[in-house]
């Protein structure tokens, strides 16, 4: 069974989804999907060990060798991503049953879990496949289930947000499809490894430039990079809290993985960063993204909006890390992927707990919450601190690596801008802290109890992970630098 791990990673949640449809009762379905997600997590851990010891694993589906059949290539980069996605999904699922009791009507619970498992399958599929078109198919699976999941939100604006996300997402996916088509037309193959070998010969043709441009724009649409981020705030704010917690930590990460995979493996570093002004473009967009999104986050009344905009800013950090295109820069990017996933899922789960108790996440209803829900608010504060990048939290580790990468490149001004950007984070986190601890609760607001246990366990699991990986960075650092080196073709 060990040799079949790569495909089992995707098949387990995939087969779990239709089985859930047959199980009908929502309590049973919850346990079953939690079980499936846990198995996916164990598989990803085994895969990571296997990859770290014995290098790249290649698994030909259907027995047909690489360019003819579809091939799953697991190297350090996507093993790392698989670990992040399955871990976050398992932890978030723990709180799912209690959270959706208050947010989704009873008869739709089973459907919710099925869609959740399908989006998990989609993401795992995107990350583990080595075939360009297969990426598009699984991208559609995860996006379709994402649209449906977001539309399950209570507020009617969730429908409108989901519709906008559908339109933008489909345009993005079709752009990727056009890009893959043009690449296929020039090289004749769909396998990424094969593409990377055959593209350099045709690299200077105009079609390959267009293909590259379309793929990058398509992926950036999914990534919510600065100019193309309009769909993200509403989608994350009005979706059910569990959905936001899951997608905030994983959806953008998968898109970033795609960006890295296409720029580094498929098109090759020299092509993507020298022939096209991608480096300058990413740097510019990343920085503007940080400042615009952070300042927008400061003026939001809905706390979910605040952290949705902060997600866009964090994506800006990642893109700046990517634009350095050095090994340390890439390590910083991968580290921030891992760390940001931890931070955001913890914060959005805590917000889920607040929604469970209060029913809404307006900043005004946060007054005096520090006393009423001490553990949840403490989790949000620690998550906020880790967003700012205070030492002893994961945020600091990735900020430090980003700084050293930028200094190594000699980009002193960019380093200063990055630090100023994280100061903006101080402002919008402290707005929430002040509301929670210093303001008296509104006269008419009914006092609320602490969040239920099912919320507190995953939240505090993630918070301890937030702190633990801030202190003992061996795991995340080793894997991230090994992946970065393997992407640069340097044998670690």
């Amino acid at each position, binding site marked *: 069974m060990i040799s079949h791990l790569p495909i089992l990673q995707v098949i387990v949640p995939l087969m779990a989804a239709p089985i859930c449809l047959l199980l009908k009762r929502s309590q049973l379905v919850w346990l079953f999907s939690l079980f499936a997600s846990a198995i996916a997590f164990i598989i990803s851990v085994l895969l990571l060990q296997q990859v770290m010891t014995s290098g790249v694993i290649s698994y030909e589906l259907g027995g047909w060798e690489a360019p003819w059949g579809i091939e799953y290539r697991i190297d350090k980069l996507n093993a790392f991503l698989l670990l992040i996605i399955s871990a976050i999904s398992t932890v978030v699922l723990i709180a799912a049953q209690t959270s959706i009791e208050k947010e989704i009507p009873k008869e739709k619970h089973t459907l919710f879990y099925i869609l959740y498992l399908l989006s998990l399958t989609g993401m795992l599929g995107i990350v583990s496949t080595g075939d360009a*078109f297969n990426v*598009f*198919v699984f991208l*559609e699976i995860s996006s*379709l289930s994402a*649209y*449906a999941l977001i*539309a399950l939100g209570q507020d*009617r*604006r969730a*429908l*409108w947000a*989901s*519709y906008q996300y*559908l*339109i933008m997402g*489909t*345009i993005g996916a*079709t752009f990727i*499809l*056009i890009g893959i*088509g043009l690449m*296929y*037309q020039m090289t004749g193959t*769909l396998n990424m490894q094969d593409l990377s070998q055959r593209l350099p010969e045709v690299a200077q043709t105009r079609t390959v430039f267009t293909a590259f441009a379309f793929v990058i724009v398509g992926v950036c649409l999914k990534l919510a990079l600065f100019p193309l981020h309009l769909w993200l705030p509403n989608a994350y704010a009005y979706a059910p809290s569990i959905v936001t917690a899951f997608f905030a930590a994983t959806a953008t990460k998968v898109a970033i993985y795609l960006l890295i995979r296409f720029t580094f493996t498929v098109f090759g570093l020299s092509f993507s960063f020298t022939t096209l002004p991608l480096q300058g473009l990413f740097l510019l967009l990343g920085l503007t993204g940080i400042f615009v999104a952070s300042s927008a986050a400061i003026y939001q*009344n*809905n706390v979910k909006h605040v952290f949705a905009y902060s997600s866009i800013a964090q994506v800006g950090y990642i893109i700046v890390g990517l634009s350095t295109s050095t090994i340390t820069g890439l390590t910083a990017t991968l580290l921030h992927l891992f760390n940001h996933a931890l931070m955001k899922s913890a914060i959005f789960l805590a917000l889920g707990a607040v929604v469970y108790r209060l029913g809404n996440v*307006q*900043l*005004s*209803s946060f*007054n005096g919450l520090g006393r009423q829900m001490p553990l949840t608010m403490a989790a949000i504060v620690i998550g906020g601190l880790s967003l700012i990048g205070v030492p002893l939290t994961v945020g600091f580790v990735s900020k430090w690596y980003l700084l050293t990468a930028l200094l190594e490149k000699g980009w002193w001004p960019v380093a200063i801008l990055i630090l100023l950007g994280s100061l903006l984070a101080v402002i919008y986190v402290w707005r929430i802290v002040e509301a929670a601890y210093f*303001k008296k609760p*509104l*006269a008419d607001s009914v006092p609320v109890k602490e969040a239920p246990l099912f919320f507190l366990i995953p939240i505090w699991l993630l918070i301890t992970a937030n702190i633990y990986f801030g202190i003992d960075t061996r795991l995340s650092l080793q894997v991230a630098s090994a992946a970065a080196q393997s992407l640069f073709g340097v044998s670690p």
Partner: protein
Amino acid sequence: MIIGLFNDWVVVVLMMIGLYIVIAHGNLIKKIVGLAIFQTSVFILYISMANVEGGSAPILAEGIKQFSNPLPHVLILTAIVVGVATTALGLALVVRIKEAYGSIEEEDIQHLDNKTQDETEIQATEGDQS
């Protein structure tokens, strides 16, 4: 040159019409129609790529040597189904939006959203003052 690339230009024109409809028109159903056109044009791009002069459909039969490339056909089979899936989901959303907002025009929905946005803000500011 013109004849050789004529197909691709038609595809580009269709694509741009689809994109224009999606961005310019406010009606939600028209946006989905635009999306469908946009996707169909991509299918035509793939199929015109696969075609071989004088080749016949990729079904092995004696006497026929030249076949058009089967791989894009497979890709497009998947893409068509994906397109329909997105359209079905989009239409379901349109129905729900009609029920929730009472209209399927982007301006009305935006207007209603802004109104609810202001109301929540007013409540919030009252909350602060009290």
